[in-house]
């Protein structure tokens, strides 16, 4: 008994519901005995992790499903001790660099060296190498990525890397060139419906199409989220009939509220009000980029078509600025001020081409 996300997760490559051609390729790769470093990339909830686990199972057999958590201690150059929980099986180890913040280089170096310098102990193992999975590889700092590049070549005998990222843009070129890039596209609505129906069938109830639609609308190609929403709906309203309220993360609701208040009034006072709300979001540990993205999406939904490109433009501009700076709130507020200005101008004097 587990969450549906886990319970109906395909365990092997054969069970995967979509991207069959990708599955066959992964199968042949793992069979070839010449398994490369792989960089999986694609939007969140598209099934990267599921495919990785399935590939590992293909490589090593069901043993990879036996996960355990190890607590490791790393010492930073500044003599700070870092406690990191590492998920691992006998055959692979998973790292999430964002857990350790700016010290990811130390962790990467330590773990990779340790793994690379020890041979596979299990004689029955199908492969001589171990696999290191790096989640959120795009969150790796430049230093850490640089630390990776040589290790990847040097310890090829004992270790393979599987990187998992949302976008390759933040991965440095040397690493990209050393990896086999595998793109996992988000499932289409049909594919998602198929999966949802599959789950419903297994759980022995019928899924009304209206419910499916609302789930698809809110999850936007994120199957993981879709399944969670699905389960939440099922828990809240077991019969899934009538006026369904789609379970939505609270911060998203809150972001739409912010978007509303931005468009409602453009003044310094409102800006102050919005700032409080943004602080509220940030204090709930919602990543600033996600906040910016969600708010701009909500605004784009609501404004005149003529303004949409501008707002996207400025969202991109301020997100870039945010990544270059350190105080996120400054840039979030700058974006909001900009949107307010544009919107106010548009309302007062009509459309102006303001990209600068």
């Amino acid at each position, binding site marked *: 008994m587990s969450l549906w996300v886990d319970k109906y997760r395909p365990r092997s490559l054969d069970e995967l519901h979509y991207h069959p051609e990708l599955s066959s390729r992964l199968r042949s790769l793992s069979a070839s005995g010449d398994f490369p470093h792989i960089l999986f990339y694609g939007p969140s909830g598209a099934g990267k992790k599921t495919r990785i686990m399935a590939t590992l199972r293909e490589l090593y057999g069901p043993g990879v499903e036996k996960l355990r958590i190890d607590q490791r201690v790393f010492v930073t150059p500044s003599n700070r001790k870092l406690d990191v929980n590492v998920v691992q099986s006998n055959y692979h180890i998973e790292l*999430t660099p964002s857990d350790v913040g700016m010290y990811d280089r130390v962790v990467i170096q330590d773990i990779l060296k340790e793994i690379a310098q020890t041979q596979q102990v299990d004689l029955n193992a199908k492969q001589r190498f171990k696999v290191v999975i790096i989640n959120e590889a795009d969150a790796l700092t430049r230093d850490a990525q640089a630390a990776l590049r040589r290790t990847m070549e040097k310890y090829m005998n004992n270790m393979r890397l599987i990187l998992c990222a949302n976008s390759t843009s933040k991965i440095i070129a040397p690493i990209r060139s050393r990896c086999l890039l595998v793109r996992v596209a988000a499932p289409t609505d049909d594919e998602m419906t198929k999966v949802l129906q599959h789950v419903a069938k297994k759980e022995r109830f019928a899924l009304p199409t209206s419910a499916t639609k609302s789930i698809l609308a809110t999850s936007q190609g994120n199957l993981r*989220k879709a399944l969670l929403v699905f389960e*939440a709906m099922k828990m809240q309203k077991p019969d899934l009939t009538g006026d369904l309220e789609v379970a939505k993360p609270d911060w998203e609701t809150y972001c739409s509220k912010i978007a509303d208040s931005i468009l409602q009034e453009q003044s310094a006072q409102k800006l102050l009000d919005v*700032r409080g709300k943004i602080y509220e979001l940030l204090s*709930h*540990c919602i990543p600033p980029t996600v906040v910016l993205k969600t708010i701009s999406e909500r605004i784009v939904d609501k404004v005149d078509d003529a303004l949409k490109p501008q707002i996207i433009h400025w969202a991109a501009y301020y997100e870039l600025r945010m990544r270059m700076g350190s105080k996120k*709130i400054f840039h979030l507020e*700058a974006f909001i001020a900009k949107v307010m200005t544009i919107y*106010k101008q548009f309302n007062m004097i009509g459309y102006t081409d303001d990209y600068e």
Partner: protein
Amino acid sequence: MSESATIKPLFEPTDIFNFDFPTPPQSVESTLSETSRDASNNDSLGMDMPPSTSVGGAKRPERMILDSPTPPDYEEEPDFDEDELALMELERETQSLKESTSTQANPFVVEDNASQKHDFSSTGIFEGLDKEQPVASSSRITLTPPPENDLMPLPIFQSHFNTCTLPSLRAETMQGRMITFKRRNKPKPSNIQLHAKNAKVNAGDLLSVPLHKLLAEVDELKSQQEAIKLQQKYDEERRLAERTGMTVIKRSTVMWVDKYRPKQFTDLLGEDRVHRDVMNWLKEWDKCVFKRVQPGKKRKLENENENFVVDYLGRPRERILLLSGPPGYGKTTLAHVVARHAGYKTLEINASDDRSAATVSTRIKNAIDAGSGLASDGKPTCVIIDEIDGASGGGDASFVRSLLKLIQDVPARKKSNTPARPLRRPIICICNDLYATTLRPLRPFARVIRFKKPQPQILVKRLREICDRETLSADLRVLTTLVDVTSGDVRSCLNTLQFIKSKSSSVTDEAIRSSSVGMKDSGTTLQNVWNTVFIPLAAKQRRKAIGIDDGRYVDRLSFTIQASGEYDKIVQGLFEHYPNVKPLDASLGNLCKVHDWLGYYDRLSSKVSESQEWDLMGYMPYAITAWYHHLAAPANNAKPTEWPKADYEAYQARIANEEISTSLKNLVPPIIQSLFSTSTMLTEFIPLIMRIISPPLKPVNANIVKSGERAVLNRLVDLMILLGLRFWQEKGENGQPMMRLEPPIDVFVHYDGKRADDIAASRFAVRQLVAQAIDAEIAKRKGAGVEGDGTTRTDGFAKAYGLKGNEGLGKKIIDKAELPATDFFGRTKSTSVPLLRAESSDQGSVSPALPPEPPTKKFKAVYKFNEGSSSAVRKSIKMSALM
């Protein structure tokens, strides 16, 4: 007859020598004329020279006649004690000497002088030189016996005739009576030597060196001396010149600040009130220190005494005085002046001294305890601790802490029974920043006196006086400007004036303007900086401030900002305040401009902090300065910038929430951990899980739940066990029992303090129901778990099992017994957090139970005490336990 003959000559030399001593220089010429008179007169020095006696004898009666009044003494008191007689004789002689010298330049004198001269000039060589060359003959003059040498022989020898070289003296009175003066036995070897020498000189009547050679030598000597004299004169002049030069430099090295430091209470600049406050405080110590009470203050003190406990030593309530104010306002001077005025000796401890806890015990305590030492002129010591805000170090051993102990009479060692020596002397502390963190513990125990700017008029007047005295011409207007520039810093004013004085003799506006000397680089408060950015200079200020027209604000602002240095704090304050300021134009255009600058600043600062590019730091003030152009308005005066706190509050909230999400992440099974990264955990997992675990359940007894709801409940229980979520009962703030979710991930669905709409309010009864169901399920699983059916679910299961073990059991021993069981399933770490929480939160429900030992299948009864329930003990036995 023979006797008288011997006596007469003996009198001679004494007389001659008596006259010889006070020889007036003018008589020299006359002596020269008579030098030839008797060459043998020099022999009179020798006492046994008969020829001279005739001369001396001829004179003696005359002398005797001159001092006619004296002789009767000899007659009438012949039996006088010899000593007395000698004294009388002495007196008489000196008297006669005076008379002779004062009344007449009598022939005797001339003669005597002549005779004396003849001692050495008898050769005739120096006749011509004598007058103009006293130097050359000086060595011989010294040869002439000093008066006492000559007088001494006078007294009569009384005994040991054999030892005395001289015979006794005899004299004949006018009546013809003979008196014998015995000589005192007092050999004078020097005398003898002298005579010998003289004899030698006399013996050299014939020169060993030819006269012309001697003359040549003399010439050479003369010229040499001339040269030496010239050289000396030159040296003297040069030295004099040097010394005057030195004094010029010396005078200028005295700082005017020190030179014109007020010495008296009445000289002090600034507010009288402050001075009097300080003085009053110091006077309050009088009772303790000087054991006297100020009469004038008595009644007032009594009134105060009603409010606070009287100190048994009569010390003021605050035993320490804290003077605070910007530099250059005269705090240190005031402290010193007042302390001296009140009769104390001061001991100053400033930043140049070592200021550790040890200092307090060694220097301060010693100074205070020692009381009046030698150096203190009997005055008690008043300790002045200057620049105390710079005293380093926090913690227990810091300077301020130990100072605090001192003033609170805390014993040095905690356990010692002897009470601490109470503080009996005043301590004055001086600081610039009253709110320095190091001073925080001290403030409650100190009387704080703040310094204000001295009134510009008074200061200007004083400066004027000083300028007058230093002959530096300065008009009042210029001095007023100076005072403005330095914002009342007297020290800075004086230094600037002295600086200007070193260049020219008059102070001009330009001199002050051009020299940035007057601008002191003092730290400004953040509030000040914020105001500077938001509020433009008032027109009046603008006129006053040096050469500033408001169009050129960049220098002024960047200077202020740089002086503060805390860019981050400044920006944060500005950022949090700017929406409140007035001149936001309707199109919000300036807002975007401000944000452009803000973004620029942020990029700079992150570059500086991340890659240590300190070069960029120099540009940061300008990024802040640019705000002025867009936002400054006089109306902003009404809304002062508040201390920024929103950012920090948000940060703290975020840290707390991150902690919660981490604790959840450590509880969930590894596959979930692996599927959800940290960010997706927060954005997707937690919000939706919160919905999943709050189904609309009705609060009914678990036994009569409908089948549909039963399924939901079972599923819920499963999930909660899986995810490590629990409900714990605890008392709320209002005393109501409540079920709390642990870990409290429900904070993530609470925005603005409100729960999301689509989550049904989870009622206490429902949660209780769920909690019971979870307990039951765990117990059941434990039974099943013993049979060892954990395959893929082992992890969650075992955790549940481990949790169970810790959950129901209150006693620690049982916990320990239980722990191996968790090890059996290989899961120990993740349970540690709930274990602790369980113990801390589980006060209400005590459920003693038998320690279950999983390997040997034992049944256990679970007792649960429910607070407030009538059936206090509920015993629940599972079916599995009976079978």
